């Protein structure tokens, strides 16, 4: 600590702290434009000049760049400081167009605000201003008005420092300097919207929000983004009852104010004309609108007729925790089935996920080493990618990347292991073995680099406490069982290792926590362990262990399952075996779809029930860390759409049962009371200060005090003024944490959480490579042909085109040229696609994106076999 004097007041500041931060903690706000608390200071705009007395007398120094020093005297409002600040502000306005009346930023603009608070009041500039064409498109979602730009470099620094995608930079010099893109390289970053969010003037505007609202017409709530499973905190803003904008909230442990463009602009789907607004019932082959009573009665009638174990429920990742719990309870205690699966064969075994010792994002970013055994995180969990990338690039995080093909993290990884598709178990053994051995496909240099990195991490803790594994599906063409075995190998080698599951779909972790998986009861409890507990609480439980999605689809084909409920699931688009999904949905006699927007699968249903989206109801959601955060309602559901939990409650009622709750908070209270992993995570805690950033379950036995930024900084994130419509109050500094309550619970005994090894994951051996074939790697892209994304008008055109990527040499060997069509054939199907050269690929690997074309067009899903360990494909010329 050092002693400083700020405007005559004696203060203590931390060593090395910037003057601007020390002052802010003391309640003195120093004006600024270029400074952003989440980026390195550059001292460019000079707005934060303050008078600092040092050994050589007083001088004007940028408070954002100068650190405090013992004995320093700082004057932020002395005549010299004020004159400098007014001077800078007058300079900034010299070439600014002052077109505030037609500017989106007007009303929430740091330049406006600070012109009032720190400006000279009047400009003496009478010359002609600089003129540019306005606006110009930097990319598909971002527009730039160069006349308004004040050259603070927030956007260019974000692109380079945080996103690692320096697609925008300065061009020209002097007062002709402008932000520009490189020729033929538009600003296509998935994170482009953040530059709009942090622009301190109206220079950057987004295509979706431009001219949509004035700031004073906006209402906002703080909620959690549910487009992927990272769980970014957002301010959702509406105007005239319609969602218009999402802004990232600076949640220190999660998104640190950043969002991906899918999360930021995906809310367009909420107001899409494709929304289901009324229940639909199939009559004479057509789906016709009916009332809720009629639709629900049709479903209840069917459920009453058939044995419970012939009913399957697929999906649930779109649901809030409370919905998932309600459906889990409905299925098990009323319908009598354990055939529940929130995943669609593209995730990881539920028992594994529920039993993994979990790491937080923060722990991953500060780990000694992170093993990423997952797909391309930028495509799957963009903000997790952002956090890990920035930690690696700026803070020296050591990443060992394990993937069949390079990913967006490869450039910053300490080691990049391109293992042969299907060989992840061998890879895990190779990494954890004390003796060096070969790993199929992995070069010895890369393996040595990875071992060095891990050895460094194991030095301080041989148990592996310093290692975090980000575990997902590196390719949908490699079976989940392989990855589960690989995880088991790592956990066995290093008992202290922790995992961050890289499952992408919305609230999939919450759904699994709520028991939307066969053999898993709410609270990460196995069916066996929890039988007595839940039997007592719920009345009855199915005796037979249920099926997962793949098994349910097969059972539907073989008529063992006669009723399928799709809870916001679209197996035709998402299940990685198109043939099986199609056969199953066509064969099943009774199909129910609960959906917000009609998907190709739900259009096959006999009954379609319209559901509310997460911004149309209250509740909670759970992210990859197990962090439970509150969802807040901002708009009302369209038409007759309603939250999923109400549908479950009503169905139960029609079936003569009472689920025992009548509102969302009541459900949460039951979850907190019954689900062992959520014990102590009370509504009170979630709504209190400690819950502002969400609460990671299970709670530690000793409370850890979370720390949050002092307040929402309007200069860091213009547009968020305060968030007061939802539980999380703003507060300063550390707050009391929440810990699991001690003492014995009621009788029967509270069941124990699942531990690693609960599930038995067979470690199938990969078949030997086929000399004539390629091993297929298929993964999703952030922008895909999924229903939600296609309903977002600004995002739907951004889906990449479908092409097969091969090494240039292998294209040459085929005798075709880049762009030519080839036939790709597997044991299950075939398709014709253009071929594209990619010299970063290892040999023998063919890459095809998953889900980038409509379901009625041939795609990677036609090539996959749900039961195969790895998919071999042949690539043939058409001639």
């Amino acid at each position, binding site marked *: 600590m050092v002693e400083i004097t700020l405007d005559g007041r004696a203060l203590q500041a931390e060593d090395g702290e910037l003057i601007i931060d020390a002052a802010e903690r003391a309640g003195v706000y120093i004006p600024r434009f270029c400074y952003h608390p989440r980026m390195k200071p550059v001292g460019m*705009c*000079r707005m934060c000049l303050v008078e600092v007395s040092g050994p050589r007398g007083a001088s004007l120094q940028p408070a954002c760049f100068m650190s405090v020093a013992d004995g320093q005297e700082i004057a932020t409002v002395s005549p010299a400081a004020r*004159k400098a600040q007014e001077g800078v502000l007058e300079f900034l306005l010299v070439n600014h167009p002052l077109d505030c009346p037609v500017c989106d930023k007007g009303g929430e603009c740091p330049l406006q605000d600070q012109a009032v608070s720190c400006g000279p009041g009047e400009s003496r*500039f009478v010359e002609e201003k600089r003129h540019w064409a306005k606006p110009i498109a930097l990319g598909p979602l971002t527009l730039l008005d160069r006349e308004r730009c004040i050259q603070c470099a927030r956007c260019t620094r974000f692109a380079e420092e945080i996103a690692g995608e320096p697609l925008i930079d300065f061009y*020209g010099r*002097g*007062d002709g300097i402008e932000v520009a893109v490189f020729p033929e390289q538009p600003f296509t970053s998935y994170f482009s919207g953040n530059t709009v969010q942090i622009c301190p003037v109206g220079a950057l505007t987004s295509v979706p929000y431009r001219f949509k609202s004035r700031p004073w017409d906006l209402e906002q709530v703080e909620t959690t983004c549910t487009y992927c499973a990272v769980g970014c905190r957002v301010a959702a803003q509406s105007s005239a009852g319609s969602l218009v904008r999402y802004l990232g909230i600076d949640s220190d442990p999660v998104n640190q104010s950043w969002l991906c463009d899918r999360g930021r602009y995906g809310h367009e789907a909420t107001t899409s004309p494709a929304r289901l607004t009324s229940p639909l019932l199939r009559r004479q082959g057509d789906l016709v609108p009916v009332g809720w009573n009629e639709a629900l009665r049709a479903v209840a009638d069917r459920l009453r007729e058939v044995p419970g174990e012939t009913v399957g429920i697929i999906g649930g990742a779109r649901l809030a925790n409370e919905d998932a719990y309600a459906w889990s309870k409905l299925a098990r205690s009323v319908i009598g089935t354990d055939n529940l699966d929130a995943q669609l064969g593209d995730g990881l075994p539920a028992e594994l996920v529920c039993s993994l010792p979990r790491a937080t994002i923060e722990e991953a970013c500060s780990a000694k080493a992170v093993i990423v055994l997952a797909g391309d995180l930028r495509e799957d969990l963009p903000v997790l990618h952002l956090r890990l990338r920035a930690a690696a690039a700026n803070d020296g995080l050591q990443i060992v990347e394990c993937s069949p093909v390079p990913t967006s993290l490869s450039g910053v990884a300490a080691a990049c292991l391109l293992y042969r598709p299907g060989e992840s178990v061998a890879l895990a053994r190779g990494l954890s073995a004390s003796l060096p051995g070969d790993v199929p496909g992995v070069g010895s240099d890369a393996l040595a680099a990875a071992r060095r990195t891990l050895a460094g991490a194991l030095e301080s803790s041989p148990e592996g406490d310093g290692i975090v594994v980000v575990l997902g599906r590196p390719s949908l063409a490699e079976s989940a069982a392989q990855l589960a075995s690989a995880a088991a190998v790592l956990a066995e080698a290093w008992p202290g290792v922790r995992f961050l599951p890289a499952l992408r779909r919305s609230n999939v972790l919450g759904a699994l926590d709520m028991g939307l998986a066969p053999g898993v009861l709410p609270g990460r409890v196995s069916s066996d362990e929890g039988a007595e507990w839940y039997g007592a609480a719920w009345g009855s439980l199915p005796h037979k262990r249920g099926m997962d999605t793949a098994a349910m689809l097969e059972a539907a084909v073989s008529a063992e399952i006669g009723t399928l409920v799709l809870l916001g699931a679209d197996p035709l688009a998402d299940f990685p075996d198109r043939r099986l999904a199609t056969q199953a949905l066509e064969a099943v006699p009774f199909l129910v779809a609960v959906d917000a927007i009609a998907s190709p699968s739900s259009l096959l249903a006999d009954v379609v029930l319209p559901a509310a989206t997460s911004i149309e109801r209250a509740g909670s959601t759970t992210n990859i860390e197990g962090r439970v955060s509150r969802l807040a309602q901002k708009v009302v559901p369209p038409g007759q759409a309603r939250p999923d939990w109400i549908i479950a409650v009503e169905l139960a009622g029609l079936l003569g049962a009472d689920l025992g709750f009548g509102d969302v908070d009541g459900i949460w209270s039951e979850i907190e009371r019954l689900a062992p992993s959520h014990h102590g995570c009370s509504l009170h805690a979630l709504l209190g200060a400690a819950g502002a950033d969400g609460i990671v379950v299970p709670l530690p036995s000793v409370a850890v005090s979370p720390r949050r930024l002092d307040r929402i900084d309007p200069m860091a994130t213009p547009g968020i003024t305060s968030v007061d419509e939802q539980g999380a109050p703003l507060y300063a500094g550390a707050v009391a944490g929440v810990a699991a309550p001690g003492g014995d619970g009621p009788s029967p005994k509270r069941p124990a959480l699942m531990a690693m090894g609960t599930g038995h994951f067979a470690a199938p051996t990969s078949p030997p490579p086929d000399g004539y074939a390629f091993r297929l790697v298929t993964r999703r892209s952030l922008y895909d042909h999924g229903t939600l994304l296609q309903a977002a008008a600004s995002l739907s055109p951004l889906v990449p085109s479908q092409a097969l990527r091969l090494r240039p040499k292998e294209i040459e060997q085929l005798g075709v040229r880049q762009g030519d069509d080839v036939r790709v054939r597997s044991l299950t199907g075939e398709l014709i696609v253009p071929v594209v050269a990619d010299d970063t690929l290892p040999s023998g690997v063919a890459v095809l994106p998953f889900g980038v074309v409509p379901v009625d067009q041939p795609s990677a899903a036609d090539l996959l076999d749900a039961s195969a360990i790895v998919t071999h494909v042949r690539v043939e010329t058409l001639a």
Partner: protein
Amino acid sequence: MITDHPRIVTARMGYDDSHTLARFLATGGYDGLRKALSMTPAQVQEEVNTASLLGRGGAGFPAGRKWSMRRAADTTYLVVNGDESEPATFKDHMLIEGDPHQIIEGAVIAAYAVGASQAFLFCRGEFALGYERLLQACNEAYGYGALGPDILGSGFALDLVIHPGAGAYICGDETGLLESLEGKRGFPRIKPPYFPAAIGLYGEPTIVNNVETMANLPWIILNGGAAFAALGAGSSAGTRLFALSGHVERPGCYEIEMSKTTFRDLIYDASLGGGVRDGRQLKAFIPGGASSPWFFPEHLDIGLDQDAVGKAGSMLGSGSVVVMDESTCVVRAAWRITRFFARESCGQCTPCREGSGWAEKVLRRIEDGYGREEDLDLLMDLCDNIAPGLGWPPKQTTICPLGPSIPSPIVSGITRFRDEFLLHVKEGACPMPPDEVRRG
């Protein structure tokens, strides 16, 4: 007083083939290097300390002291700054075109002293011939053994890269230059870190010296630092190149013993400037490049001495002296220089970026006859917002010294020639004769 000093850096000027290795070797070239390599690096540095050689780039920081500030590290770089871009400065230009080997020899000596094994010479991009000659000389030096893995059999290794600039004045700022060398925009680096000697090119300790500074080293090593220090007076030791231009009879680049010679000598002596052209009266002169505040006839007897000029409120800077006779329009002169700064501001700092452009527009308006009386106070206050207090040396509100350079011509002009500015306003036109070459 014109002294009979030795020609230290211009000894070879006058030979048509002064830039060739043959001429260089025939005139004692690389003897200084040979001698330096027979000494220890510490001895070389001590010799340069003894010489009290001030950096010749503009800031006038003692070269030896700069060297000794370097942080100990495995890698140290030497960067030679040949990005001479200040208007009316053309001394490095002459050295680069006329005697490139001398610069290379000096660079090898410096690299040896500071323990650098990689050196860069950043040559202003517009010096097409100079760049060509530097490349030629560099190749010849490698062939001769003055560069490469085993220099002149000493075992000392140095590689030199001749790097052409891309046309930005700002890259003459040492940190702007380093950024440019790294392949980035020429944005000067914010301080701290204060000195490239601690954190420079690619984060490594880096010694950045001017071309003329390097050119002095062979002579200093051959003749001893004491012989160099015996020239000049006080801290301004040795000789220095002065680029004399403007309204003089004999514009040119002159090597002159520092301190002993005055501005009057430089401008009026028959062997140097030869007086103001056509016998006109001196109105003002710029003593040290476009960034320096102007001097007037009463300053003529100040010696060409860093401290003396500093005390009088300006600087020797880059060693370029521009003479303005009575026919000069000071508004136009100030506008011209301001326009240069406005065009060359890198655009990072608001006061410099916007202030230079604004001032340029106001000056232009006054010159065009549309000025207002209050424009003079506006210009002064605008300058005050760039360099608070308008004192000397200027206070800085910007990252690099380009910002505080902007007020120099404006404040000098308005303070001294307020009436002439007001005459522009009153007459609604420029009262002075037009340029012989019209402005663009």
